[in-house]
């Protein structure tokens, strides 16, 4: 049997497997959505898979009322954090790939290790230090922390990406008289868009989904949405439908990013931000 024939025969089987896997991945979202749309009286563990009898947006409205100021907080925190992180990462990556200096590889390795520390291990000194800096309780403090703990990953992604930029391209620029700044501005930066997309999405998701730093570093007025979502759950009666609606609302910004920009994310990964 020639390979073409095999492919034709196995094709329906492949689709079947894909659809089955897709159902597995979508199952929790289905549950979030239908539970969020149910009225409270209708939430019943035994009927959890059943479609809602009517569509109740009340839960979403209630959840949105409670979460919206914190969604705004999250945006005010996440957007600067993602952008600053990517700028820092890009410059670092540029230096560590194209402007190596003595011990730069050793230093890079030391930076990289920061990616792997369990954050609980540094939580208390972090809080005390931020308090001393007068940054605890503010959104800018949280931005700073996300930028700092993002240095390792963002530098790594950009460095890997720039490693794929041929030295000849830079050489050409050098001959034209461009220096550190000029080469970055006219040669490296314009080539960096795919890596920027990867890092922006990555840092956006990380900072947005973080709970640990947010809960200890912000106050009730500056809480991002993850902390507010946790508070929505309360400590006694669990209103599943409101909580599910809230969980979906909370997940929405990052979900939309992955749905609409996921392909650019993947393209960025393939373009060299990821290289084995």
């Amino acid at each position, binding site marked *: 049997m020639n390979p073409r024939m095999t492919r034709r025969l196995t094709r329906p089987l492949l689709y079947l497997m894909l659809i089955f896997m897709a159902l597995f991945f979508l199952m929790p979202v289905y549950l979030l959505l239908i539970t969020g749309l149910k009225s409270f009286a209708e939430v019943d563990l035994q009927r959890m898979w059943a479609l809602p009898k009517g569509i109740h947006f009340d839960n979403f409205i209630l959840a949105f009322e409670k979460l919206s100021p914190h969604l705004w907080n999250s945006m005010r925190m996440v957007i600067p954090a993602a952008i600053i992180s990517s700028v820092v990462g890009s410059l670092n990556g540029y230096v560590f790939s194209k402007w190596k200096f003595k011990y730069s590889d050793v230093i890079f390795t030391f930076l990289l290790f920061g990616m792997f520390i369990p954050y609980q291990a540094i939580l208390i000194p972090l809080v005390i230090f931020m308090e001393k800096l007068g940054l605890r309780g503010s959104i800018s403090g949280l931005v700073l922390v996300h930028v700092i703990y993002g240095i390792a990953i963002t530098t790594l992604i950009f460095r890997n990406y720039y490693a794929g930029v041929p030295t000849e391209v830079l050489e050409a620029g050098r001959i034209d008289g461009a220096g550190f700044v000029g080469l970055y501005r006219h040669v490296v930066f314009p080539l960096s868009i795919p890596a920027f997309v990867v890092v922006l999405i990555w840092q956006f998701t990380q900072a947005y989904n973080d709970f640990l730093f947010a809960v200890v570093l912000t106050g009730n007025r500056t809480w991002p949405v993850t902390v507010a979502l946790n508070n929505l*759950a309360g400590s006694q009666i669990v209103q599943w439908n409101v909580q599910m609606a809230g969980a979906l609302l909370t997940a929405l910004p990052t979900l939309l990013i992955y749905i609409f920009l996921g392909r650019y994310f993947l393209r960025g990964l393939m373009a060299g931000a990821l290289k084995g």
Partner: protein
Amino acid sequence: MIRKLSTTIALLIVVALLAACGGAAPAGADQVEVFSWWTGGGEAAGLDAMIKIFAAEYPKTEFINAAVAGGAGTNARAVLASRLQAGDPPDSWQAHAGQEIIGTYVAAGQIEPLNSLFEEEGFGKVMPATLLPLISKGDQIYSVPVNIHRANVMWTNPALLAELGVQVPTTWDEFFTACETVEAAGKICLSMGEQWTAMHLMEVVLLGELGPDAYNALWDGSGDWGSAEVTAALGTYAEVLKHVNSDAAGLTWQDASQLVANGDAAFNIMGDWCDGYFSGTAEGGNLGLVPGEGYGWAPPPGTDGTFQFLSDSFTLAKGAPHAEGALAWLKTAGSKAGQEAFNPVKGSICARTDCDATLFNAYLQTAMADWASDRVVGSLTHGVTANDTWKNEINTALGLFLTDTNRNVEAFQSALVAAAAAYPNK
């Protein structure tokens, strides 16, 4: 494409910087920042009701509600601990009355004694005399209790008991006999939930088997965890665990008490926040049952005449940024009006004994009567009797005991002896 994206990124940077600059709210002069873990359900509603009373009495003081939810206060505690270590205390915070406060915040020198407040406001006179030593260290009282919950309550399903002809047991032997009947009918005898509810059950069994004096002695250092009486009580506990549902570890306390409400289980031993869950409205996520009909209650075997309490209370921070506001808040929290606003909504009784009984439902009225007359002892699970470090060692020992399919009582007891020796109340 590249130019477009660069422009977009540049624009985003501008927006981001603008957004980041819209800084935090300015600090007013007259404020009080109160920290709690009351963010949901009746707790948050009760807190709101009490804040209203406070706002009416002190209209010029801004109330900052710094509640953090999650894990029965665990997240809140992490935030609080790091704030205290960083030297930035909230003015007043919620903590369980008793050793949770004494062993943690008093030991660390973080809170002020409140004796003069108690004297001025006459709080001491309207609270049970057996309560005060449990919230004091030496002569100093350290917190204002706003509510009281009872830990030792056995909830029953009256219809199921009537159908099976089972009497409410008053001793553990009667309980085991009752279990035979219940289990023969294919029902669960005692429903239980996740690990902390197992600890709750353990403290109730210890109290019932040892009696209040020997139970208290375990915590003040005069009793012996290695004694034969404790061995026997732990043996009873191991026996009781044979009659609980097999999926306990997967259930919350609500799931467990719902088993009794549904008639799947005959008994459940849990604090009286269950009452709010049983009798509260369905819209609020509760079961909407009639007290005495849909569910019944009795003291668990051997604990009649003893009120095993826990209490949420508020403290005064040492070096509170707004000490005046904090004292005003504590006055409201200890006042009749404040407690009458809070407790009916939260589903607990007042720490004061002079609250208006007609504000409360049938169960809570019986609890109020008992609170005023019974011997008061503290709860372990809810922070009264042991400091946090000790309690957590007990929790670990218990967790290992529950995981151990052989239920080795000897190993469990020696772990408890070691815990008591390593981290006694100071």
